[in-house]
């Protein structure tokens, strides 16, 4: 399911989200958008589309520490 040229991804700890939407415009490739799902606190939470670059912008601006960011790196053959 992951595109072979994918550069990164994020995990979203939706339970912590307070639906402020600050992450949406922060994402340079624009792959975040608000979903229709509400978390336990009653807030709409974001979802990520394909194309995340692992740039950490969302993580940086999120006041509720929702995002974990990963970059995909080539596996090097080990000595």
């Amino acid at each position, binding site marked *: 399911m992951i595109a072979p040229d994918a550069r990164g991804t994020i995990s979203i700890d939706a339970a912590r989200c*307070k639906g402020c939407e600050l992450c949406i415009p922060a994402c340079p490739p624009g792959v975040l958008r608000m979903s229709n799902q509400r978390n*336990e*606190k009653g*807030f709409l939470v974001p979802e990520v589309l394909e194309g995340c670059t692992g740039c950490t912008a969302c993580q940086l601006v999120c006041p509720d520490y929702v995002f974990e960011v990963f970059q995909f790196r080539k596996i090097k053959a080990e000595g």
Partner: protein
Amino acid sequence: MEETTIVIAGIGGQGVQLLSKVLAGAALAEGRHVMLAAEYGGEMRGGRSFASVVIGAERLRSLPVIERADIAIVLHEKFWEESAHLLRPGGLAFVETAFFDAVVEKTGQSDPPYRFAAFDGYDCAREAKSAMGAGLAMLGGLCAHAGLARTDSLVSVMTEITPPYRRQHVATNEAAIRIGAARAPRLASLESAA
């Protein structure tokens, strides 16, 4: 009892504070003495929101931290226990239909000491095309049923205290109150069903 005490409980965003003000304001407009105590933990959604309203014909004797309620308006199952704790034996728990079962279940006693009534505020709100009107509809219904204040008083206080930037909701809110009030007669049967 000369003084009637109503508690309203729900979660942040359901309009508990608006409801309590509309109720108290309407009773005041009709010449009653009122007292309103609000408690809410900041502006956070999903947090506890609670209010008590005391209405009486004379200068009130009730304490500002109420000990016992005659009526509980239950907008959400969360925090019901607190209202239950306050409701006097024989008091009325006026519960949003959506949470009715959960509330009854939580009550857990085989023979609960209160009277229960379910009221479908959400349905009224839908009919009124009012996004936030469920609580107002319940208030309309309750007042029509229990005679706490006239529907017109509720509507005019709601209109008066709506801030300028919320003016667009006045019409639908009014509709919610009136639809709720209109459904009050059905209440009696529901009540006895509990």
